[in-house]
């Protein structure tokens, strides 16, 4: 009975967040707490000799730790188990994957500017910073490899000598027969596409506080993370202590976007320091550290060949791409495989060959960022659609339409594997309908007409379309324990760690519907490894699908158990009972009832329990949801823009998103996810780029250099929901976290290219900065003047 699922239930988190009652790691203070400043490399590649003796003499300094102190005590970080490819996929595509462990503090040499070398632990951050300035690091610079194309050359010296090469991972996937497709097609074209390095910039930077309890010899670590369980298992493994002795808590987390979806050396180092010193130890990343050292993302270059017929039908696509992974690649091929799996999106492209390589360079290590390899794929595919349409003199909509998968072809098999090792088969959707819904909201025909009319007046209007498919709700699992306490309150304990996704609201809506109560009678507890034995985390648009389904099924199990207890006590068959408004009652005799509190009392352990003998004591049920495969969300973005010839700004006249995330749990929350995702995507499209110089030095270390859109630049997105239920979970939900961020770079690049189609401008690289727009407009003006002069003659 869906009373709350699907409603705009007001976010439970907001009262706390808006009234200052929230608690982030930086807010926490423990008695006797020490603070840390890291000494970070100022060179991108150098041998180092570290001397902390002067720093240790500074007032208030408790310890200066370097790699020497960690040797033999704290192991290096290896790629996370959770991001390894499943064996059946490895056996199918035979990827190359070289081990590339990451030292917690640099040992003998540094491989990127910003790498932690030493940690100074002092009474407070001020003293720690002062002492960090006294740590002497002698650098002997080594040649820097900042360009992945140079780094991957066979003769290039390996940055990690044990690897023997800088190509850390490579993979190749082929579907159909590309050569034949190429041979049969009417037309062929080649292009190069560049999606630069960006950084997620959550409002809250990283932060870690670790507390060692001498009595139980155990650690509690509060960290701003998306993956508490992965942090726990790595702390236990690297410090060589039982997992039972480590509790990891993510309190309120101010955004992660993938950047906090991994385990960082600092988390291990702080945990170690707290244990070693027997004192609480805290580190809060400052924004400069964040820009330099927090893992970054994207950074792909694609060389593509596409073969198509005169009607726009694509017969074959061949792509070779290089990912600049930076100095370490903890997520292995997660992002590049996402690029591979999502490249063809909503389109039927029978012959497809794609090869990708992750190259190690002397730059900040890489990680996933909202979309995780998908925005890159969509950028390539949707630029191609537009380039093909221009080549053939067709409207891009026509080219999209001849290639779109039709609704009657669902479930559609793309003939390859997804990253979870299951077959890549789209579960549901009507892509032509989604496209047309978006075009309608964008008033496509009206703006096409306006574009023609205004162009003769020297105004450049462009329309850009982008579509995407997104595998969401990836496994391996997520769990929920649902319990009714002695006062009748329902508590849902989950392993998925929220950082802005509204878990407390949407999961309590799901739970409330199963029990027939108000969401206020449900407390959702998350972000703490002590709540339940297993958990994965919140990333890859997986929360609603995995944690949502776990909560739903666990609630159903518990409901059933409660009905049996009530049936036993009331001596009324279960079929004649109903659960509603916090009690179970006989349908025929509503007076005969038990409240949740009564049921909780009846279920308590003890002699002569008032529950069926075969039931375990307690009002509790657990479910681990294991998705059969991912669910495929999808959507279409349409951007209508006007180029400002004076400022080079791209004025967004209309930005439309029609999105299918299956059953919508809370429309307000989904709208927020889309709006926020679009904001980040527009940043990537128009402003954001992490730039390193040839020496691997970061040149964009401040918000003056790394420009992000503000409320001024982000329009209110016009949204439409199309609901095609997933067939892979009972509620029919699909993920929505990343969709908003996937398409804007492609939509904006298409719109700008479209505005300037008369001079053949192709925007095959983002960001389309104001400087570029100004150049384009000048070229276009010159061309238009010339054409007018010729016309006059």
């Amino acid at each position, binding site marked *: 009975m869906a009373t709350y699922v699907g409603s705009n239930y007001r976010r439970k988190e907001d009262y706390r967040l808006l009234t200052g009652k929230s608690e982030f790691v930086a807010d926490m203070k423990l008695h006797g707490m020490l603070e840390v400043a890291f000494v970070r490399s*100022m060179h991108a590649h150098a041998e180092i000799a570290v001397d902390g003796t002067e720093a240790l003499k500074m007032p208030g300094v408790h310890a200066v730790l370097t790699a020497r102190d960690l040797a033999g005590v704290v192991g290096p970080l290896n790629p996370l188990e959770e991001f390894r490819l499943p064996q059946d996929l490895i056996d199918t595509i035979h990827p190359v994957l070289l081990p590339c462990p990451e030292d917690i503090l640099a040992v003998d040499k540094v491989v990127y*500017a910003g790498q932690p070398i030493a940690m100074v632990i002092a009474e407070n951050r001020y003293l720690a910073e002062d002492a960090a300035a006294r740590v002497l690091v002698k650098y002997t610079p080594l040649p820097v490899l900042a360009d992945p194309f140079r780094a991957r050359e066979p003769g290039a010296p390996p940055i990690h000598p044990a690897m023997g090469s800088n190509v850390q991972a490579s993979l190749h996937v082929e579907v159909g027969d590309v050569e034949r497709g190429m041979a049969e097609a009417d037309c062929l074209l080649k292009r190069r596409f560049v999606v630069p390095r960006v950084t997620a910039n959550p409002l809250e930077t990283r932060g870690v506080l670790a507390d060692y309890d001498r009595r139980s010899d155990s650690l509690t670590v509060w960290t701003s993370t998306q993956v508490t369980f992965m942090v726990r298992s790595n702390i236990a493994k690297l410090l060589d202590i039982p997992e039972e002795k480590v509790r990891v808590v993510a309190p309120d987390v101010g955004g992660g976007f993938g950047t906090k979806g991994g385990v960082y050396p600092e988390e291990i180092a702080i945990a170690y320091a707290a244990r070693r010193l027997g004192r609480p130890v805290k580190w809060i990343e400052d924004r400069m550290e964040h820009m330099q050292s927090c893992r970054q993302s994207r950074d792909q270059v694609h060389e593509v060949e596409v073969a198509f017929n005169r009607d726009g039908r694509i017969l074959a696509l061949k792509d070779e791409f290089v990912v600049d992974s930076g100095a370490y690649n903890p997520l292995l091929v997660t992002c590049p495989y996402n690029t591979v799996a999502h490249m063809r999106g909503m389109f039927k492209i029978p012959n497809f060959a794609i090869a990708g390589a992750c190259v190690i360079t002397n730059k900040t290590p890489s990680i996933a960022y909202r979309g995780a390899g998908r925005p890159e794929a969509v950028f390539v595919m949707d630029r191609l659609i537009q380039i093909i349409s221009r080549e053939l003199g067709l409207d891009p909509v026509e080219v999209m339409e001849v290639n779109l998968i039709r609704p009657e072809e669902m479930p559609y098999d793309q003939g390859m594997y997804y990253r979870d090792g299951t077959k890549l088969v789209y579960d549901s959707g009507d892509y032509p309908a989604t496209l047309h819904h978006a075009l309608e909201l964008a008033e496509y025909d009206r703006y096409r007409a306006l574009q023609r009319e205004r162009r003769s007046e020297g105004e450049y209007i462009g329309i850009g379309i982008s579509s995407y498919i997104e595998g969401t709700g990836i496994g391996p699992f997520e769990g929920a324990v649902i319990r009714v306490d002695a006062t009748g309150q329902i508590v849902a304990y989950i392993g998925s760690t929220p950082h802005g996704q509204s878990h407390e609201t949407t999961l309590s809506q799901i739970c409330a519907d199963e029990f027939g109560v108000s969401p206020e009678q449900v407390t959702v507890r998350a972000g703490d490894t002590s709540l339940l034995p297993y958990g994965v985390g919140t990333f890859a648009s997986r929360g609603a699908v995995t944690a949502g389904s776990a909560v739903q099924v666990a609630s159903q199990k518990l409901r059933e158990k409660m009905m049996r207890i009530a049936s036993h006590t009331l001596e009324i068959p279960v079929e004649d009972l109903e659960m509603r408004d916090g009690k179970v009652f006989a349908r025929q005799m509503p007076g005969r009832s038990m409240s949740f509190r009564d049921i909780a009392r009846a279920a308590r352990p003890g002699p002569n329990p008032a529950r069926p003998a075969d039931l375990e004591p307690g009002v509790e049920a657990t479910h681990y949801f294991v998705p059969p495969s991912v669910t495929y969300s999808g959507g279409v973005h349409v951007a209508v823009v006007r180029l400002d010839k004076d400022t080079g700004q791209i004025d967004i006249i209309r930005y439309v998103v029609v999105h299918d995330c299956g059953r919508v749990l809370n429309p307000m929350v989904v709208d927020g996810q889309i709006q926020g995702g679009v904001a980040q995507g527009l940043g990537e499209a128009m402003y954001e780029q992490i730039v390193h110089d040839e020496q691997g030095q970061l040149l964009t270390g401040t918000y003056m250099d790394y420009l992000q859109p503000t409320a001024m630049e982000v329009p209110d997105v016009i949204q439409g929901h199309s609901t095609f239920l997933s067939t892979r979970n009972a509620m029919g939900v699909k993920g929505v976290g990343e969709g908003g961020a996937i398409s804007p770079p492609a939509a904006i690049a298409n719109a700008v290219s479209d505005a300037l189609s008369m001079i053949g401008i192709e925007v095959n690289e983002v960001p389309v900065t104001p400087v570029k727009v100004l150049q384009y407009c000048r070229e276009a003006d010159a061309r238009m003047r010339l054409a007018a002069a010729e016309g006059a003659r």
Partner: protein
Amino acid sequence: MQLNGQVQFRHPTAVIWSALHDPEILRAAIPGCESMTLNGEGSYDVVLRLGVAAIKGEYTGHVAVEDVVPQSHYLLTAEGSGTPGFVKVQMDCKLDPTEAGCRLTWDCSADVGGMIAGVGGRVLGGVAKLLAGQFFKQVEKQLAQVRA
């Protein structure tokens, strides 16, 4: 980073040449110079206190002057590092006599790293030119004082 510039002096080449090789004058003229002492290897150990944008701090390092053609062409190399990062500079300086005195043409390549690159990079070129201007102005001022 590549920078270059020219500066006019009202003194003859020989005077400017010796001033630019005079540790006393250099110490007083180098912006932010806290100390400058000759070390055994023919170069000077220096301590500088400088700010670029929001990044202020102390740099320790070395400065050396190497003559290519006496009285007209020398190379100045400097490197220093500190909490804000590191700087490595090679400056090619040529002196030509003019009617009013002489002209110094300098061509400089600089590597910067660490926080000053990331945070100050945007303004670094401007700041470097400003500092160079200050330096040459100070040299003239020092000369005037010596003469007075």
